[in-house]
């Protein structure tokens, strides 16, 4: 039991999520030797990839002889538990995953999918990166982003508040505000 606890403590997982999308170029980028070596060098022990509708299946590894343990799956009804137990999250640019990760105060690298037709998603990732809430990368710059990242430079995101919008709706409709 004590050993299992010890194991859990020393476990530092990188969780990769693409949501319901197909984002093979991200999974491929994460699965490269240089990225995996860099993550291991930075002290991460496990790499767990949620690969969505993608067809590229990363090579699993048990993590013997001094390398990352790699595992993957397609979907889960809730990724909250995975996010919670992760030490670093690498995510697609969907606003759902971004804000769920930020709310859990986990270090986050958002990778923008450049193959999407209407690529407005980069707007959000870039804005939040500019405000230092996360790191923003492309599949081809992921390795460099990981190598250069300084987790200490990240500023925790203050969750928004819907109350002011509700207040305006109420006053427009003449409802009492309480």
């Amino acid at each position: 039991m004590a050993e299992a606890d010890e194991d859990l403590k020393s476990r530092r997982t990188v969780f990769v999520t693409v949501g319901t999308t197909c984002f093979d170029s991200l999974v491929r980028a994460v699965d490269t030797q240089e990225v995996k070596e860099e993550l291991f060098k930075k002290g991460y022990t496990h790499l767990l990839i949620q690969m969505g509708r993608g067809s590229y299946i990363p090579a699993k590894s048990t993590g013997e002889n001094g390398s990352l343990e790699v595992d993957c799956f397609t979907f889960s009804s809730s990724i909250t538990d995975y996010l919670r137990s992760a030490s670093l999250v690498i995510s697609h640019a969907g606003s759902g995953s971004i804000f769920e990760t930020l709310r859990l105060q986990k270090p986050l690298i958002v990778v923008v999918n450049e193959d999407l037709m209407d690529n407005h998603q980069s707007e959000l990732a870039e804005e939040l990166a500019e405000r230092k809430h996360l790191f923003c990368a492309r599949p081809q710059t992921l390795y460099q982003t990981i190598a250069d990242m300084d987790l200490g430079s990240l500023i925790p995101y203050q969750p928004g508040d819907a109350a002011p919008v509700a207040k305006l709706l109420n006053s427009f409709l003449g409802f009492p505000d309480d």
Partner: protein
Amino acid sequence: MENSNNHCLSITPSSLVLLSIIGFITLILIRVLYIIHRSSQPRSASSQQKPLSTLIVLGSGGHTAEMINLLNVLQKNSFTPRYYIAAATDNMSLQKAQVLESSWLSEGGVEEVGSAKFMQIYRSREVGQSYITSVGTTLIALAHALWLMIKIRPHVILCNGPGTCIPLCAIAFIFKILGIRWSYIFYVESIARVRRLSLSALLLYKLRMADQLFVQWPQLKSKYHRAHYVGRLM
């Protein structure tokens, strides 16, 4: 005498038709301008306090999460009954709304059982569908939207981004012009839009179909002055 008679007769049936068409169009234009003007005005004091039936248009993933954050702070008993609509291909969003409604029920935030209804709507275009086949599917989606709107005739419409809200808002606007139902249309632009409005928001803003439009980033407020910026939902 003869001359003036001729003059009277010169108003031929065809020019009468033309005149009445022009008159009709002018009347409609005046009506539309009046509707747009009145839409920007708050609800009149006399009708206050009565609860308003509310249509909530849900999008996928991130959109729904934003809407849920807003719904959580609204006075449930003022916005009742609530009708949730999501795309027929999106089961997750309605499920999340159902979970939300039952959590309100168990917390006592909602008084009556059955004050919420859940519906699906055909989408005019799926991601990746070709533009040619989407003409047919758009017509089907429009007919379906009209059918739903006739059934619901909501007093309030809340939407935050998915394209599915456009036919519903357009029909609600036409209902306003025809005097069938007055709906207050609120649109909250998705938090994912930082520098440019989505096509849905742009349409509702430019055609002045949304009574009030909210954006979640100050950059957009400075570009679109009639929009409101009062912080973020997420």
